[in-house]
């Protein structure tokens, strides 16, 4: 990402592809990542996990290369003293207590003061009170937090977190974000993968958008958000007088087009969905139409990714 930067990237992904039989999971992807928080964003099946696994040393690329902190990551165990990886699987050794899991990681990382590091990591995820309970009895969110503590216990320079917020509730997410920001301020590199834009929009400085195994967009969060906002939204409206409502909606700037389908339902296309939401009840009131149902047809992250990918291919063509 951000190829204009002149400093040495923490993570360098160069022409990486990965295929499984006939399926191409990651297709000729290149980017650099620098200190700070970077979100790897994409719909399910976009190749985020496959890519993150290759960056984390859990799998080989079929083609291309990955370097972390200047070194290859596969068959180079020494690099793991500087990297922390939290995989997408929420599995833990269920017979261990939360503290034992963190301690296991600290000892395998040969942390100098194990007990102090374990205390600090558990404190960071706010699980001191439950640290002596078996992981098998933890809730999903608690497991994720204890896994995060185990990932952080050796103070890695690079953190790779695959869907770390799954299973966490809103207060836990806020706490997680606070922890991530604190770590990022120390000059460390954090890569978080997610398929939920809202999950990372307040957290990430930079975003890499993946779709169908390719980078659809990469850059500062605001620029990406702007691109996302350019996508027209499609909303289906059912009303008792659809044509009257349609005529009224066409008078609004926010509305790009209105069509009536064979079931007399309106398909309203708009680039300013917030404005449309605000105006719709007013138009209905002014035209004396009763709205029966409003349904976004493509208000999903997948459709946004699709749109961005199409824009990208058009740009290349």
């Amino acid at each position, binding site marked *: 990402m951000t190829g204009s930067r002149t400093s040495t990237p923490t993570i360098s992904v160069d022409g990486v592809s990965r295929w499984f039989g006939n399926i191409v999971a990651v297709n000729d992807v290149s980017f650099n990542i620098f200190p700070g928080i970077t979100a790897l964003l994409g719909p399910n099946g976009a190749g985020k996990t496959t890519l993150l*696994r290759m960056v*984390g*040393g*859990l*799998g*080989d690329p079929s083609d291309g290369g990955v370097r972390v902190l200047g070194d290859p990551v596969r*068959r180079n*165990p*020494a*690099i*793991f*003293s500087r*990297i922390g*990886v939290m*995989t997408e*699987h929420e*599995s*833990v*050794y269920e*017979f*261990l207590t939360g503290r034992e*899991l963190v301690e*296991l*990681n600290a*000892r*395998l*990382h*040969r942390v100098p003061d194990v007990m102090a590091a374990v205390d600090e990591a558990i404190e960071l995820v706010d699980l001191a009170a439950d640290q002596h309970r078996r992981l098998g009895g933890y809730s999903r969110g608690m497991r994720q937090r204890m896994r995060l503590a*185990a990932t952080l216990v050796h103070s890695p320079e690079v953190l790779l977190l695959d869907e770390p917020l799954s299973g966490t509730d809103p207060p836990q997410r806020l706490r997680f974000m606070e922890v991530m920001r604190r770590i990022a301020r120390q000059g460390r590199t954090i890569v978080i993968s997610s398929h939920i834009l809202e999950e990372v929009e307040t957290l990430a400085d930079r975003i890499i958008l993946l779709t169908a195994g390719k980078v659809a967009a990469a850059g500062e969060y605001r620029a990406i958000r702007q691109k996302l906002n350019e996508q027209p939204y499609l909303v289906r409206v059912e009303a008792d007088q659809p044509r009257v409502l349609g005529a009224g909606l066409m008078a609004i700037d926010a509305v790009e087009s209105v069509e009536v389908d064979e079931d007399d339902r309106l398909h309203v296309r708009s680039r300013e969905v917030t404005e449309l939401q605000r105006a719709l009840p007013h138009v209905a009131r002014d035209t004396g139409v009763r709205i029966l149902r409003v349904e976004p047809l493509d208000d999903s992250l997948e459709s946004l990714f699709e749109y961005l990918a199409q824009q990208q291919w058009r740009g290349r063509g």
Partner: protein
Amino acid sequence: MMVLLALSARQLAGGKRIWLMLVLAAIPLVFAVIFALVETDATALEFSDGLTNYLIASTILPLVMLVLATASFGNELDDHTLPYLVLKPISRWTIVAPKLLASLLVGGLPVAVSGWLSTLIITEGDAGHAAATAAALLVGAVAYAALFTWAGLTVRYALPFGVAYIFVWEAVLSTFLDGTRFLSVRQYTLAVVHGIDDSRLRDMVVELGLAEGLIGAAVMVAVFTTLTTRRLARMDIP
């Protein structure tokens, strides 16, 4: 290494599986007690040799080691906990070695103790006979641990593979085909029993000498441990 040994031993010793393994390991003791209590035509050595050859070395030891050693990596592959071990600044060898030791401790040791104790009961306290049985079973356990740990990491259906190995290769082929005897853990085990205590297994076919048995087992351990270590370094970690 001790951290991983403790983790692996706890992992293998947990759950219902360990009880089944302990019951299997205790079967020779039941036979020994029956021999001690019931009149029979067989001499103590004949009975002890039969028990060692036909029950412990050919069935109980390989089955116990198969179940435990394939699980030592198999559990982590199934529940996706292997990244906790491989994403650490330690050599792959220091991950594999504790796995081998753990299956040896949890599976091989109880079988060896059972073999030792049952021989003691049958031979009315002959420490030499009992020690030969126990030592040979430990040698066999190490070789099986190396083979089945590799299978657990590499072979998709490790248990059926292991059962085929035990009941086709070891029980049938290595008994009837001369060349394959050099590649049979059971033959190594019997060779060590006979090599340490030449009064044992006299009436049975022991094709290999003590040195051959020990070298065969050592080669097997070295080859399969190397293969396991290489596999761990090169595989995609699930």
